[in-house]
């Protein structure tokens, strides 16, 4: 009785929802993760400039958002435009779920800082929208107490290690350096900057074999282990907490702190620096790069509308609008450092400088397994189960097996 009425009502509702042309307007269904108050003004601007198009935005949660996109894809119930993180993106592209945008976004892609993020096997399956990197956050007050220079952050490995050790000796629950424990999808971003900075690599240029087992990577891991001993090892959110409580000398973290610190620790005296490079001439201030990519599914109902919206969102003005509101990401287009917003915020500009030197992860279909291999072995070294050399060798062997066994042709 009640069930039948409910079912009928539901069916009527569903039928009423059908029909993508509401009042003569074209409809673009857009799934994304930014809070409504940040993306709202950007979408309003789009609607103003495109009166014939209506955007139906749905905000996804970071918790289980991927499950939702996956379930929708399995059922063919996909949005027109979707935001995918750079870690998830290669899988979606490699499995043939996304529309090939190589030709339609060629011009825009040239203006992007990390256009390769959206490329798999030489073809572009999305448009980079917002990017993020990691830099060194250091505590000025603790550095001062330890008698260190507070005008600039540590420049190279020796300076960082010395600073970490001095701050670590201050006692009272204060730690010098915050190293990440074996946290999936995170540890990698905190260790590899040192490896890349030292000239280390992951894969050979053709992507068919591992180039991970190298003296540069072993040195980087030994350095990382030394840093961990001069501080503490914990998960990222705990390290951020400790940093904001003024109990951590330095750590590698990201732009989300620019949002959190004013709210939670407005009196914190801190600085941001590029990730230190090895001593001497060799090496760079490398860091990890990732971001959000706009893409459209092959099963979408309105692919042309999706492309129109994507082009707008990734354009300089719209992306800047979002980046200013969000603070945790930067636009993917080049040249935004000249904008007044970044001119007034030197610390956020450091992130932009870091981006120019940042390295994206290879868009290899087996990348997540390779990343897991690195994280597993680094974790074992952190807990003293392996030496740095053994860990690098073991990780390299696993990466090599994955590189050789994976069929690189897109399905």
């Amino acid at each position, binding site marked *: 009785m009640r069930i039948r009425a409910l079912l009928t*009502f*539901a069916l009527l509702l569903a039928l009423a929802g059908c029909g993508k042309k509401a009042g003569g307007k074209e409809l673009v269904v857009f799934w994304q993760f930014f809070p409504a108050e940040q993306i709202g003004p950007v979408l309003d601007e789009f609607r103003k400039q495109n009166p014939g198009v209506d955007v139906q935005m749905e905000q996804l949660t970071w918790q*289980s958002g991927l*499950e939702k996109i996956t379930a929708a894809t399995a059922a063919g119930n996909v949005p027109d435009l979707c935001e995918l993180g750079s870690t998830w993106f290669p899988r979606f592209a490699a499995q043939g779920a996304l529309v090939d945008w190589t030709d339609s976004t060629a011009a825009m892609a040239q203006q992007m800082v990390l256009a390769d993020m959206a490329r798999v096997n030489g073809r572009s399956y999305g448009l980079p929208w917002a990017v993020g990197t990691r830099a060194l956050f250091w505590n000025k007050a603790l550095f001062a107490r330890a008698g260190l220079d507070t005008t600039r952050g540590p420049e190279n490995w020796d300076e960082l290690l010395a600073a970490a050790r001095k701050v670590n000796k201050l006692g009272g629950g204060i730690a010098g350096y915050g190293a990440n424990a074996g946290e999936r999808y995170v540890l990698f971003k905190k260790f590899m900057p040192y490896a890349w900075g030292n000239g280390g690599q992951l894969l050979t240029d053709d992507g068919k074999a591992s180039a991970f087992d190298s003296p540069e990577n072993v040195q980087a891991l030994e350095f990382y282990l030394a840093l961990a001993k001069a501080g503490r090892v914990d998960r*990222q959110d705990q390290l951020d907490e400790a940093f904001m*409580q003024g109990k951590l000398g330095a750590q590698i973290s990201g732009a*989300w702190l620019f949002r959190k610190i004013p*709210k939670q620790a407005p009196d914190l005296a801190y600085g941001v620096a590029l990730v230190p490079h090895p001593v001497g001439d060799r090496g760079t201030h490398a860091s990890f790069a990732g971001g959000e990519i706009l893409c459209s599914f092959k099963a979408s109902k309105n692919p042309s509308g999706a492309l129109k919206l994507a082009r707008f969102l990734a354009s300089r003005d719209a992306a800047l609008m979002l980046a200013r509101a969000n603070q*945790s990401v930067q636009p993917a287009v080049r040249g935004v450092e000249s904008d007044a917003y970044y001119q007034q915020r030197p610390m956020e500009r450091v992130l932009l400088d870091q981006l120019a030197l940042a390295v994206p992860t290879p868009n290899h279909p087996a990348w997540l397994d390779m990343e897991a291999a690195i994280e597993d072995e680094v974790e074992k070294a952190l807990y003293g189960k392996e030496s740095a050399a053994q860990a690098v060798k073991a990780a390299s062997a696993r990466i090599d097996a994955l590189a050789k066994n994976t069929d690189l042709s897109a399905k």
Partner: protein
Amino acid sequence: MSAVRRAGAPLFLVPVLLTMLVPFAWMLFLSVQPGAGGDLTLAALARARFTLEHYAALLQASGFPRYLVNSLVVAAVVVGGNVLTGAMVGYALARKSFFGRGALTWGVIATLMLPKQVLMIPLYLVLARLHLLDTYAALILPFFVDAFSIFLVRQYVTQLPAELEDAARVDGAGELRIFVTIVLPLLRPALAVVAINSFLLNWNSFLFPLIFTNSDRLRTLPVGLALFAQGEHAVDWGLLMAGSTISALPVLLAFLVFQRHIIEGITAGAEKG
């Protein structure tokens, strides 16, 4: 049982309770601290302040009242369904002899044994085919009949003496009449537990409401709270703790209301004098 004083609580319970409540004390504490920190250290206690800004932000947030109403409506309907169908099926499995009863009982228990991470996508496909996605039906129908409730009632009924039902049967009453007039009242404690459990599970249900609905107008409280308070790299602790406290109140209320039916001892048959 042990001879307990009618006046006050057994003394040993008090420290046990206080220990149990420590995490909640922290939750409440964090919900009234300014900023968004997840600082659960003694230092945080030392610099404690007080603000209701998180509660205010949530209650004024657009959509929040809507999410509350959605959660209430859906939970109420599902609880009603679980209580009714749990009683019906549980009683039948416990008392009625029929071919395949053992298999059906094990079938009920077995449906609890597959994790929802695996069931999620096929269930989504079913709802998609039935065109029920993004409707209230998607939030209600798959959960209307619940294996846990059935199993609980079944176990409870096997503990009940069957004399009252048999006497009524001898008197010539029909089976359904016996069910409604005799069995259902006796099932009150079990149904109270079913109500509490169903309300609780449904109220806090996150994954299925998230993936089965898209529109903001259908959103339930846990999903709304996650949208506000859980970012990619950072959790807004103040908002999350405040939201969780607000969210806990209806469940607590439901508990206090329903658990009154779990009273001390029944005197089955004694009322007959």
